[in-house]
């Protein structure tokens, strides 16, 4: 596989995963914004904090204004992480590898692109239809994953794409978790009620699982356990790294180039530090340090991956 193609596939799926994560967080924020007394009182703050580079003052100006926040997050091209920009980048990557993805995937990618560029979308976001628009995007994003799964051949391209997806997913979960736990001072003993955690869990599609599997006390511990280590939760840090580990080993096995062994080794260290950890250890080391370590290592891994397999320019 051409290095350029591998690079584009990796980033195409990373961007799509980021869009997906953002949309879910926005939907939660939007719905919660209608509750008069919101448990966390944060409304758009998490989305603006995580997905934009606005300063505290600018965020304060936007966070109580639904349509302004929505427009900035979804459509503003000055915001380099807006949905529109992310989707455009994903599509540019897809366009560059059009012959390597199936026609169905390309058409879905295109559909989403035209969806975000549809005429009159900005007006609709100010009115009653905003939630319909977000829902339609989430739906398209789900379809994108489904179409990938049912049409893309398994092989090199598949491995790179999914490695990108899982890398991004792991980073998003770590960032969301970081943001919410920061409000508690990263202190497991600083108990918050379930309403505080509900928006985080909803944004990661993990609320139902939480209600089913975890007890109704020690929410801080339970949430951390689910988001970091739950083997059955598809957005946990562990799950994402475990999948990434599989795709990386497949890649390394078929591309024995210089540097691939070192790359597998350094990823293995990160993976073990999650696989063989538990909350006790995390509490001892400090949740903040732990999350920062995971994010830093993962970002470095992504950079080294590029150096090892994508160096074509």
């Amino acid at each position, binding site marked *: *596989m051409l290095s*350029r193609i591998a690079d584009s596939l990796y980033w195409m799926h990373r961007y799509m995963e980021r869009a997906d994560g953002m949309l879910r967080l926005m939907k939660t924020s939007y719905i919660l914004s209608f509750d008069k007394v919101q448990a966390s009182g944060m409304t758009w703050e998490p989305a603006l904090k995580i997905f934009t580079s606005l300063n505290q003052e600018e965020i304060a100006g936007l966070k109580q204004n639904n349509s302004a926040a929505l427009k900035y997050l979804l459509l503003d*091209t000055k915001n380099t992480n807006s949905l529109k920009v992310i989707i455009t980048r994903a599509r540019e990557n897809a*366009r560059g590898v*059009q012959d*390597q993805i199936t026609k169905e995937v390309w*058409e879905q990618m295109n559909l989403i692109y035209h969806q975000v560029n549809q005429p009159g979308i900005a007006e609709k976001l100010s009115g009653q239809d905003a939630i319909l628009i977000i829902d339609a995007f989430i739906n398209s994003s789900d379809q994108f994953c489904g179409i990938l799964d049912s049409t893309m051949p398994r092989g090199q391209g598949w491995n*790179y794409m999914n490695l990108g997806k899982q890398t991004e997913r792991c980073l998003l979960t770590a960032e969301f978790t970081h943001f919410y736990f920061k409000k508690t001072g990263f202190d497991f003993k600083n108990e918050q009620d379930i309403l505080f955690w509900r928006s985080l869990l909803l944004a990661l599609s993990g609320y139902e699982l939480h209600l089913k599997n975890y007890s109704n006390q020690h929410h801080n511990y339970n949430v951390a356990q689910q988001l970091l280590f739950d083997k059955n939760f598809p957005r946990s840090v562990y799950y994402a790294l475990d999948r990434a580990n599989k795709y990386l080993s497949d890649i390394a096995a078929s*591309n*024995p180039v210089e540097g691939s062994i070192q790359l597998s080794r350094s990823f293995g260290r990160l993976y073990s530090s999650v696989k063989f950890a538990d909350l006790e250890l995390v509490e001892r080391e400090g949740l903040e340090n732990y999350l920062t370590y995971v994010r830093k290592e993962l970002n470095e891994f992504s950079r080294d991956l590029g150096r090892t397999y994508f160096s074509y320019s």
Partner: protein
Amino acid sequence: MTGEALFNNYPIVPHIWDEMKSNDGIRQQYYSIYETGSQLSLAELEQKHKLASELFMSQGITFTVYSENEGIERIFPFDIIPRIITGSEWNHIEKGIQQRIKALNLFLKDIYNEQEIVKDGVIPADLIASCPHFTREVYGIKVPFDIYVHIAGIDLIRGDDGTFYILEDNLRTPSGVSYMLENREVTKRIFPNLLADNNVRMINNYPLLLHDNLVHLAPRQNANPTVVLLTPGMYNSAYFEHTFLARQMGIQLVEGRDLLVDNQKVFMKTTAGLRQVDVIYRRIDDEFLDPLVFRPDSALGVPGLISAYRKGNVAIVNALGNGVADDKAVYAYVPDMIKYYLNEEIILPNIPTYHMNNDQEREHVFKNMHKMVIKETNQSGGYGMVMGNSATEAAMEKAKENILANPRGFIAQPIIQLSTVPCLIDGKLQPRHVDLRPYSLCGPNGIEVVAGGLTRVALREGSLVVNSSQGGGSKDTWVVDMPNQ
């Protein structure tokens, strides 16, 4: 309005050949279109038109207009009424094109080797020497099977008496074949029964024929040679076509930065290391291919590519230097080439062409400027063209100045009234001018002309300029075998 009224009210323009209708009524090859169309309402036809546009849009068959950091997607306009050519007309066209490509191939071989045709005085030496696309850098390079023109898109037009003329030869990197193929796919969706009922000849074997030819050119003895399509990248207006062809042929789509030359061999950079490339179907112009030989500022090409080509370690399609054969001034000599190399008379006639560096011919053109079209000899895509019947006085004067400054850079031809076909515009069927670009593939097993080609249509009323860059659209093109022929 009913479809019947639409068809019955279709006007034909006097002294212009219309493909669907003559003074005696609908031509036989259009009967079934007429019948089907008559049974539909205008609303249904317009619905089909809308469906066709949506199909192009959703498949990303678009080009992007960039403005202020935002790209706007446009589709090339498509008209749903097909252009129909009868089987016997087509057989004549096919023979004519095969003859022409055969001669042009021999010419290219000759001109980059012995240059007999110049020595024998058939073509003036200064005409070749002054051609900007005569490429000295490839002089003497041997190409596989002596084939230079692997893919040709020769443009034809039809005059007022129904005669097909050759308008120009495109022998470098002719584009548009993906539109020919996609137009047909769209027609299958909007008029599913018509195609089968009419015995329309098949076109979708084009990518297979091309792939077959490309594989044959591989210099290494290898059962599975590496064939790639080299694109300038996704900002090129024909990028959709590049991805389309790569996908249809199952070959890698590469950019210049994916390739490198080592020890006069070409390699592509993969995640598993370097892999040798045998055949390059390039969609990049000659001058950008190799910065070491041609334009040093080209970022699209591959440094050292020409050295590998000269050594015979890689085949490049089409060959380099073909521009000397589709130069608009050299065009006038193609009938002589056919006589010289094949000892045959030309089957599809040229349009009379006046050379502007001949004083008498230039005088004649200047006197009759309003009946002439002026073209730049090394331009394509409808750029640099002045139509004498519609240009302003000022534009004509400017053209004269330009010609006097560089007479070799221009030719003139009498304006031919292109034939018309019906198009669905503003709720009416209206006649619009068309040309025809059949695509030909030349391989070791001979020359195949895919039945049909791309019909380009000038959508503005009365306009004779069909290029997509100048407001043109396209139509599906059918070759139909009539039962009684």
